[in-house]
């Protein structure tokens, strides 16, 4: 590597001076090479026509490295997915780093590398960014903030309030992988098989679903709060009830086992590479087939349908055939003894 790069990030790296420029050029611009960043202007300038989707997010996950990913990959995928959930084709991202002084340069490089790989897979570009360095204790190693824009094609109208009675609910794959992969580090659980975060960009999956049928009413990615929380949000926004079947929901055995041990319900555990779609019942199978052809939708399944009774509620049929309410997550998921 050219130049003198210290092995730890210092306050000086965020002050706008020579060290800061060196950091930006060597660590960021070089890795994320694109015409916008190369200009190093104060803002990125681009043309567009049509409807734009615009989103922002902050990433504070701890630990910053976890099985299957890191905070960098999470930041890109999370932003891309928020755009995709509006039916947009994700285009450009901004990327801001708030670095705690003392973060090893090697760790920052590893994260930027992850960002670059994720950006490449998602087919987006990081066109503007910012770096700040704060005192020890003021940030937990690294915080990342992003914003993203995407273009919504004509005729695409996806919103949480569009669900209609009779629609089917499709889940793109297994739930709970990300949350358990992250918490396993803390709780001293190790996996004899590879359980990793499912962190993935879903822009292509959504594009393929829309190509199969325009009759997609809602899309949501069940991140914090899990599937249960997302379904509750949709039920409330659309003023309908959503009825799901426990036995149809795909969950990996390791996730179930970890949940049993810690006292979690997989319905509330975070996902970072899954989506739930509410679609017309006529086109449900067609959309399902399209999803299963994509690497991130292989285990997609129809898990329920939209009903009129108990509007705003999510009801689940248990393995005994009885029904129970599935509420939103309240507060944090905490391991319990009881």
């Amino acid at each position, binding site marked *: 590597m050219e130049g003198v790069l210290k092995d730890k990030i210092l306050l000086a790296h965020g002050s706008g001076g020579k060290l800061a420029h060196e950091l930006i050029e060597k660590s960021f611009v070089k890795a994320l090479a694109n015409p916008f960043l190369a200009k190093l202007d104060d803002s990125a300038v681009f043309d567009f026509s049509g409807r734009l989707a615009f989103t922002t997010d902050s990433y504070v996950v701890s630990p910053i490295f976890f099985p299957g990913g890191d905070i960098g990959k999470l930041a890109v995928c999370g932003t891309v997915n928020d755009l995709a959930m509006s039916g947009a084709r994700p285009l450009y991202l901004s990327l801001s780093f708030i670095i705690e002084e003392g973060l090893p340069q090697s760790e920052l490089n590893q994260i930027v590398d992850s960002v670059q790989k994720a950006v490449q897979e998602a087919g987006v570009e990081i066109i503007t960014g910012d770096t700040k360095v704060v005192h020890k204790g003021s940030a937990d190693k690294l915080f990342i903030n992003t914003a993203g824009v995407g273009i919504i094609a004509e005729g695409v109208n996806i919103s949480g309030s569009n669900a209609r009675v009779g629609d089917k609910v499709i889940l793109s794959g297994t739930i709970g992988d990300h949350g358990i992969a992250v918490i*396993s580090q803390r709780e*001293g*659980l*190790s*996996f*004899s*098989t590879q*359980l990793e975060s499912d962190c993935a960009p879903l822009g292509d999956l959504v594009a393929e679903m829309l190509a199969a049928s325009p009759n997609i009413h809602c899309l949501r990615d069940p991140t914090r709060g899990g599937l249960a929380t997302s379904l509750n949000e949709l039920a409330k926004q659309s003023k309908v009830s959503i009825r799901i079947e426990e036995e149809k929901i795909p969950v990996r*055995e*390791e996730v*179930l*086992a*970890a949940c*049993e*041990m810690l*006292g979690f319900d997989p319905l509330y555990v975070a996902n970072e590479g899954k989506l739930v779609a509410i679609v017309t019942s006529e086109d449900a199978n067609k959309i399902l087939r399209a999803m299963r052809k994509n690497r991130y939708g292989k285990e997609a399944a129809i898990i329920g349908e939209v009903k009129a009774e108990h509007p705003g509620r999510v009801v689940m049929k248990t393995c005994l055939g009885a029904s129970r309410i599935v509420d939103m997550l309240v507060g944090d998921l905490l391991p*319990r*003894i*009881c």
Partner: protein
Amino acid sequence: MCLAIPALIKSIEDKEAEAEIGGITRRISLWLTPEARVGDYVLVHTGYAINILDQQEAEETLTLLRQIAELAEEKG
């Protein structure tokens, strides 16, 4: 109260063991079940094995439940 789940003992080192359930493993304590052996299933509560699971009794219970299910089918 008392979340305890059945886990398989894979290896033992002094008073601790590696226990596995559904593809995940955790270090557990055998302070309460010093007689546990590799290959036993134990009930794990807050990281401690609180009892050795009786596999034969488990099978017998399942057999009983199957018989009840068959009887119910006959009675229509």
